[in-house]
């Protein structure tokens, strides 16, 4: 890149890309395309050119931008779903803009009020990649706002299905605040007790004051633990909430008894401390990646609207309202929303995301086309043969796997808590029975003391802090987990199924081979100049391999979408594209070929082959050596079988030509024996991902569509897949260590308790101490583990 920049004279002012051919100019600045120039013009007119000074390269290239249709944003139903009206002249809309990436973006997007009078204010949330716009709906329409954003290069990602609920997050913070407030004050008012002051007045008043302060702690901040314990008893799903609630209730009752009878100060400080620490743990493990979604279904992949011909007129229609027999217009690169029949001329459609077949398929006039495919040709017309929700691909979501109730997952902690509860109750009873003959009072005291001191605060904190810290560390390395239970689930997986296309092969980089006459330098530059003009992925790949310091100027550039490109360069006619485009006999090979001709003389062709992700073979070997089964599924034909067998060995089961439904059933059949994880990327894997015990999605950009899953892996981290599973198993060892510490504290505490000598002071010291030890241990040890398994922090990845 560095050498590139020296020779190329002109860089676009907006996007800093080299400018091919003649630049677009405005004032003294030069631009690579009309889009970039427009943005600069608009910014200049509004005195907003500071945008370019605040951060390096704030702009995105708009060369590959296609014109979007936003007519549907004038429909009242859609507006109602997106906009929250506050008053007749004030409305609020929150839009997701995946392009937000630097401080210049924040600056510019908060200046939206300069573009339209009707916009009052706009506020960016950088981490969520969202902008919150307040505007007057009677003077500026939602469509105008979205079009303005789109024109500036920030294309909103409009999703009418999702309106996130954020009140939960707020509630937890308030609960922590309340518990913290009470805890602090109760400690203060317990000082006389700690210091052993024997003033009856103080004792009485401070006792009641503390009791009053503990009520919001138990019945507001800690209410979730009581309620959940009640439900888990009711439905007989034992979890850690039961012993916790038992401890809370016993502590409260004992304290009330002691304070009202004047026999002691109770355990109010320990009680509020317990709830406070538990809530902190809850908050710590809650980590959401706002710009990632683990819940997406086909609706966020499909367009929201499409163009329909009706009575000889074209109109935008939202895809839910498409009926059988409607005639639709689909443009290049658009996604086909519904099954139907091709009416216009032969065309080619890319089904890679739906079926896993890599190469675009030629569809003849009158043939069936399926929803989810992407048109790789000029606009076409089709007649819908079904409604969207009955389309073949979409019917996957009607399958039972998507409707089965998520049964409550029991983590290791939950599974152990059952025995734990039983054990404490036994010890408490033993203490009670032991003391009954001597003194009933002491028997009660021993019984309650055991329940109080054995309250599994330390155990309940282990999971949140250990997994919460791992979640945080993993996300910095490009591995995003849906929640902390995922690590626990991953430890139990015994079989891993890979999807082929897009998952273990790279989507962007394909291996390029050239067959034919070797290029001269001049020819090479001419072909490069041609490839540079086009934004088709194959052209871009060729451009990358041929890249040179000099970019030739071209004229008469002409592109037939999905077929080929041609131009005049240095007086020669350069052509590049499919065999048909160059007038050659039909290509019968299974490969993707791009033919090259100069002055109508064919020089040769480029072949594109899948490139497997770095470290794929090693991941499979590592997984297998750790005792896990591995298989490979593909919707594609088996032309790659040999290559894969050489790469992975013949023991890995490979299945080809599987459609989305078959993939799901294959997972089902494996689940008879083992816990199965599925690694996929596209819509075609959605069923399998949902059916599996652990769905992992590999994505090359966090802005891309990812089907619903438990884990999102950035493609660069793919080679860490085996280490991740190892990590999840090792995490269980760390949990074991934490339990050992907890048990140690319990033995000390029980020692006092069983002798009926537990004083509130001892409890007040033991409890926070054990909690803090656990927090320190888990955070430190998980940090070391992640570093050992996945390498140091040199690989920090933002976004």
């Amino acid at each position: 890149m560095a050498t590139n920049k020296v020779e190329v004279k002109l860089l676009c002012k907006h996007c800093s890309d080299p400018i091919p051919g003649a630049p677009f100019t405005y004032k003294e600045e030069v631009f690579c395309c009309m889009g970039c120039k427009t943005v600069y013009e608009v910014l200049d007119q509004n005195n907003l050119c500071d945008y370019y000074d605040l951060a390096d390269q704030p702009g995105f290239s708009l060369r590959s931008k296609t014109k979007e249709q936003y007519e549907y944003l004038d429909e009242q139903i859609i507006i109602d779903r997106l906009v929250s009206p506050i008053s007749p002249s004030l409305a609020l809309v929150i839009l997701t803009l995946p392009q937000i990436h630097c401080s210049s973006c924040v600056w510019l997007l908060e200046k939206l009020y300069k573009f339209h009078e009707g916009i009052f204010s706009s506020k960016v949330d950088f981490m969520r990649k969202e902008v919150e716009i307040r505007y007057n709906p009677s003077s500026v329409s939602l469509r105008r706002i979205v079009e303005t954003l789109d024109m500036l290069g920030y294309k909103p990602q409009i999703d009418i299905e999702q309106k996130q609920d954020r009140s939960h997050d707020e509630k937890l913070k308030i609960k922590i605040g309340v518990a913290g407030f009470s805890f602090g004050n109760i400690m203060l008012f317990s000082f006389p007790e700690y210091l052993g002051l024997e003033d009856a007045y103080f004792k009485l008043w401070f006792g009641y004051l503390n009791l009053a302060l503990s009520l919001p702690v138990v019945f507001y901040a800690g209410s979730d633990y009581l309620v959940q314990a009640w439900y888990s008893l009711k439905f007989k799903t034992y979890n850690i909430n039961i012993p916790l609630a038992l401890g809370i209730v016993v502590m409260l009752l004992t304290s009330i008894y002691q304070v009202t009878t004047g026999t002691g100060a109770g355990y109010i400080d320990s009680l509020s401390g317990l709830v406070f620490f538990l809530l902190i743990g809850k908050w710590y493990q809650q980590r959401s990646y706002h710009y990632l979604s683990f819940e997406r279904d086909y609706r966020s992949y499909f367009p929201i609207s499409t163009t329909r011909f009706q009575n000889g007129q074209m109109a935008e229609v939202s895809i839910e309202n498409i009926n059988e027999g409607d005639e639709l217009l689909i443009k290049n690169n658009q996604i086909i929303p519904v099954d139907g029949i091709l009416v216009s001329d032969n065309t080619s459609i890319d089904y890679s995301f739906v079926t896993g077949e890599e190469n675009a398929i030629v569809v003849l006039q009158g043939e069936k086309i399926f929803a989810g495919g992407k048109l790789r040709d000029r606009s076409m017309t089709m007649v819908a043969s079904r409604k969207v929700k009955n389309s073949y691909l979409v019917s996957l979501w009607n399958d039972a796997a998507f409707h089965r109730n998520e049964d409550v997952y029991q983590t290791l902690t939950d599974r152990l808590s059952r025995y734990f509860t039983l054990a404490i109750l036994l010890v408490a009873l033993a203490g009670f029975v032991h003391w009954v003959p001597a003194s009933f009072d002491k028997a009660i005291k021993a019984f309650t003391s055991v329940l109080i001191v054995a309250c599994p605060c330390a155990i309940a904190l282990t999971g949140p802090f250990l997994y919460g810290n791992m979640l945080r560390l993993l996300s910095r390395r490009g591995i995003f987990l849906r929640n902390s239970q995922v690590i626990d689930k991953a430890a139990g997986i015994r079989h891993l199924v890979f999807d082929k296309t897009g998952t273990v092969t790279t989507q962007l980089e394909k291996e390029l081979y050239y067959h034919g006459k070797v290029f001269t330098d001049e020819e090479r530059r001419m072909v490069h100049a041609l490839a540079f003009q086009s934004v088709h992925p194959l052209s871009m790949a060729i451009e990358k391999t041929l890249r040179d310091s000099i970019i030739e100027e071209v004229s008469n550039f002409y592109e037939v979408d999905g077929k080929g490109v041609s131009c005049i360069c240095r007086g020669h006619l350069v052509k590049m594209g499919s065999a048909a485009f160059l007038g050659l006999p039909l290509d019968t090979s299974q490969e993707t070929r791009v033919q090259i001709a100069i002055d109508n003389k064919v020089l040769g062709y480029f072949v594109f082959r899948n490139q497997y992700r770095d470290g794929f073979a090693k991941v499979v070997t590592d997984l297998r050596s750790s005792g896990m089964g591995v298989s490979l599924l593909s919707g594609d034909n088996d032309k790659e079988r040999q290559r894969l067998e050489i790469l992975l060995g013949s023991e890995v089961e490979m299945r080809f030509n599987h459609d989305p439904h078959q993939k799901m059933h294959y997972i089902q059949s494996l689940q008879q024996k083992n816990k199965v994880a599925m690694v996929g990327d596209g819509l075609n894997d959605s069923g399998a991902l949902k059916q599996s015990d652990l769905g992992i999605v590999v994505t090359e950009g966090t802005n891309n569509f990812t089907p619903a899953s438990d884990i999102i892996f950035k493609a660069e981290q793919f080679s860490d897949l085996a280490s991740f599973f190892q990590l999840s198993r090792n995490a269980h060892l760390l949990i074991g260590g934490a339990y050992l510490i907890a048990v140690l504290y319990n033995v000390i505490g029980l020692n006092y308790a069983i002798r009926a000598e537990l004083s509130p002071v001892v409890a007040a010291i033991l409890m926070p101490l054990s909690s803090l030890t656990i927090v320190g241990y888990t955070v430190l040890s998980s940090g070391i583990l992640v570093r050992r398994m996945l390498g140091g922090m040199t690989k920090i990845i933002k976004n």
Partner: protein
Amino acid sequence: MKIIFLLIGLSLLLAIGFLISFLWAVKSGQYKDDYTPSMRILHDEKKSTNKKQN
């Protein structure tokens, strides 16, 4: 020593005041986004835009 009851009452009132202001801060969304303000604060409002870096 009776004065201590007045002091305790005052200190509790003060603490409740802090609690209320915390609740207000959460409700008004001040904890919603703790990253963007750090980027926003670096932007100066400039009248003339002559500074060019490249």
